[in-house]
């Protein structure tokens, strides 16, 4: 089967396409967002040296290169059986990851909060530079650790920019908490990464799943357990419809991203924790959740900036020349949610199979539900407005998500079924 990648869609804003299925009476029964503009690259990776995969994926998916960089390194380390890295490597990677989260969220905030987004961008770039990644594509991590401790001079710049960034994120969070959002009727499970204590950690090693009633479905699973936790209904598809094995295909649909992050685990930094309580009480939506996660990431970075581990210590552990034939899974909780890299290597260290499971692919069922809610509105203008709001809420990694309010190029097709 030929896979077509329409590069032109990535440069020029392609319209968001929604297909609504209606019954004979005209009532919507199903809605689906067209994700064909987001091809899977998994099959491209087969046969390549497995050590090259993180760099390949970073360059293909240049929108979130930091998240792919770190998830890929973790997958390689899982292949090699490396569970623990030196404290300096962990600290520098944490610094990079949280700056990457801020950078991605700032892009989405630009159309509404221009000056604040630029302040966040300046801060995130300074932090990524301090962590060893001055350019668009990260150069911080190597299999088994990082290239070097953080740059002390650049850390001073981060301190200088910190106050402006924090003020900007706080303003956005406070204003976003007052915004209306679609009523959250999602009855699936929320997934996010946590620390061993169950509290939210975007760079955590534990996967936590919480049902709509707040009860944990998975308390703390490791990446080694991935294959027994999540299965794709349509493996390799742009819309794979993954589900939690424990709950089955029908009940196991789940959601990732800022909403899931705030619903899944208690935030461990004080200001964001306070905002999280307000968010949970207010019924605010994903825009506020993104802003609160941004505040959280800044607080994490603020703590890290004073860590002695950041600037001195062993940078990496030895990494084997020959990787065993097995499966390695690495993950991070990125700006848009859980990102998973799963590599299967052969006896020559080449990729036998690879899975890059993105937040956008995982959130497709949730977006479908939001679109279905919107499709039930009384007139066309309300339907379009509701669908635009739904797309912003689920935030698929497509150009349409960052279009200024009211300007989203949206095509809605109706079929009878």
């Amino acid at each position, binding site marked *: *089967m*030929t*896979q*077509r*990648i*329409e*590069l*032109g869609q*990535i*440069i*020029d*804003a392609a319209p968001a396409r929604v297909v609504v299925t209606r019954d004979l009476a005209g009532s919507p029964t199903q809605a689906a967002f067209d994700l064909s503009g*987001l*091809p*899977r*690259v998994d*099959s*491209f990776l087969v*046969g390549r040296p497995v050590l090259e995969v993180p760099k*390949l*994926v970073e*360059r*293909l*998916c*240049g*929108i*979130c290169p930091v998240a792919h960089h770190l998830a890929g390194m973790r997958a390689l380390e899982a292949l090699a059986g490396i569970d623990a890295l030196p404290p300096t490597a962990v600290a520098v990677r944490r610094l990079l990851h949280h700056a990457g989260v801020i950078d991605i969220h700032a*892009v989405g905030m*630009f159309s509404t909060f*221009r000056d604040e*987004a*630029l302040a966040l*961008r300046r801060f995130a770039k300074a932090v990524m530079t301090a962590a060893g990644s001055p*350019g*668009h*594509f990260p150069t911080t991590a190597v299999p088994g650790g990082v290239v070097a401790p953080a740059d002390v001079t650049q850390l001073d710049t981060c301190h200088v920019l910190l106050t402006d960034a924090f003020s900007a994120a706080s303003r956005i969070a406070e204003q976003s908490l007052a915004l209306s959002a679609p009523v959250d009727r999602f009855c699936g499970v929320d997934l996010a990464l946590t620390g061993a204590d169950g509290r939210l950690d975007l760079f955590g090693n534990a996967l936590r799943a919480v049902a709509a009633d707040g009860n944990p479905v998975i308390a703390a699973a490791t990446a080694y357990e991935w294959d027994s936790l999540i299965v794709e209904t349509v493996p390799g598809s742009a819309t794979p419809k993954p589900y939690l094995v424990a709950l089955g295909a029908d009940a196991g649909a789940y959601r990732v991203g800022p909403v899931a992050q705030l619903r899944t685990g208690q935030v461990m930094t004080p200001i964001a924790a306070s905002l999280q309580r307000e968010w949970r009480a207010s019924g605010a939506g994903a825009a506020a959740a993104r802003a609160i996660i941004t505040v959280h990431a800044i607080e994490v970075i603020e703590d890290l900036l004073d860590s002695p581990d950041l600037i001195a210590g062993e940078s990496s552990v030895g990494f084997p020349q020959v990787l065993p034939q097995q499966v390695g899974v690495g993950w991070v909780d990125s700006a848009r949610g859980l990102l998973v890299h799963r590599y299967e290597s052969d006896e020559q260290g080449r990729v036998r199979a690879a899975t*890059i499971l*993105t937040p*956008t*692919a995982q959130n497709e069922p949730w977006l479908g539900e939001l679109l279905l809610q919107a499709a039930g509105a009384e007139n066309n203008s309300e339907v379009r407005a509701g669908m635009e709001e739904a797309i912003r809420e689920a935030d698929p*990694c*497509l*150009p*349409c*998500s*960052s*279009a200024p309010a009211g300007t989203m190029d949206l095509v809605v097709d109706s079929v009878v079924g």
Partner: protein
Amino acid sequence: MCIAVPVRILDVDEGKMPMGHVDHDGVSVSCCFAYTPQAQVGHYAIVQNGFAIDVMDAETAAKSLELFAEIAAMNENTELHVNE
């Protein structure tokens, strides 16, 4: 998965909302550089929804562009379609 193709910057205005153009496979496409004040003519940009979200030098961009070409060549069943 999102695909990010670097495109060459042809020109950039000044001001709070600087506009400019990028060369997308020989076609000049309008783009806003407000988010990337460091953008320079001759450098490359990653563009989403008409906004340059980051910029890079020609050498870095070339590595990405080579990768897209290499993947297309390696996978006979893959077609990369530009400007359709």
